[in-house]
């Protein structure tokens, strides 16, 4: 005769392990992204630090529940834009520290962040209009964008953060119907 209480506990353990396994799959995307960022010796430590933080938060959110899972997906999609374009700008020699290119660096970084913020707010408002979902996805997006923009300088990271927040707020206000 099967003890259902014991089976329920074993089921819960299997469930948690299964969720963790699914949550860890995000590493397949994030680990290569962190390695690309860490390729540059100048920003290696910062990249690893941000990468570990991003990986940890992403795994935890994806493991916790579906809202967290969706927020991480939205955040990584949106954050992929400043990440990729940040790496391209760095490759082209743009740096926020240089006087002649600082304006471009600020402008582009802010724009990438703005686009990311708008995408997050649009997606999250459509799925479930909650401020926490947008904020979580924006945080993930900012961390992902930071990985790409670290090479451009701290000013670029700040511009991405600002752009993401502004973009998310504008899109959410214009989208309407959001409740906390």
């Amino acid at each position, binding site marked *: 005769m099967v003890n259902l209480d014991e089976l329920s506990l074993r089921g819960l353990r299997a469930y948690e392990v*299964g969720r963790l396994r699914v949550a860890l799959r995000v590493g397949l995307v994030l680990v290569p992204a962190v390695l690309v960022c860490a390729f540059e010796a100048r920003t290696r430590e910062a990249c690893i630090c941000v990468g570990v933080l991003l990986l940890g938060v992403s795994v935890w959110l994806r493991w916790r529940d579906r809202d967290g899972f969706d927020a991480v997906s939205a955040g990584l999609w949106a954050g992929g834009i400043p990440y990729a374009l940040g790496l391209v700008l760095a490759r082209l020699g743009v740096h926020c520290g240089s006087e002649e290119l600082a304006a471009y660096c600020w402008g582009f970084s802010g724009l990438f962040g703005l686009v990311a913020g708008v995408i997050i707010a649009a997606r999250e408002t459509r799925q479930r209009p909650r401020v926490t979902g947008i904020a979580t996805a924006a945080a993930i997006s900012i961390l992902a964008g930071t990985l790409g923009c670290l090479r451009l300088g701290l000013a670029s990271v700040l511009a991405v953060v600002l752009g993401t927040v502004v973009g998310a707020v504008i899109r959410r206000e214009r989208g309407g119907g959001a409740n906390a």
Partner: protein
Amino acid sequence: MNTAERKAIHDAMVRLSDGDRSQVRALLDALWPILLAFARRGVGQEQEAEDVAQETFLRICSRISDFDRSRDGLSWAFGIAKYEVLTQRRRLRRQSQILDAPEIALAEDPARSQEADLIAHELELALEGVLGKLEPSDRAALGLEGVEPREAPASAAARKRRQRALERLRSLWRRLYGES
């Protein structure tokens, strides 16, 4: 089963896949009689059916994060149960082949030639050699140590232990004498 019960199971699966851990017990209570009945039809014996139903439930819990909510939950669960039943049947067939093989060989040829006796003797020696390389716990699980196994043969733990011992025996035999 009526539509309401089917929907209750589906809803419990959806909530569990969303991250509501309290649904594990609710899902077990709703699903257990169905899984057990399905397993009974599949494998026939009560003890085997309970093992299959348990394994199916643990697999459902482990894979619930991948559950596609647009599909019917019960059909998804039956898909997993069917796979477990087929696996158990294959396992039982393999076990019965191994255990019955010497008796079949003797029954087919009651008056063996000297050559056949020699081959049989060599095979016995080879088998004894392989059995000698097994761990004492494995020999005990196969009933070769002159002591009774601790659990009754019908218990799931004893059967599992015997199955593992047989797998190790097979693996040793292959290593020493190849596939045949």
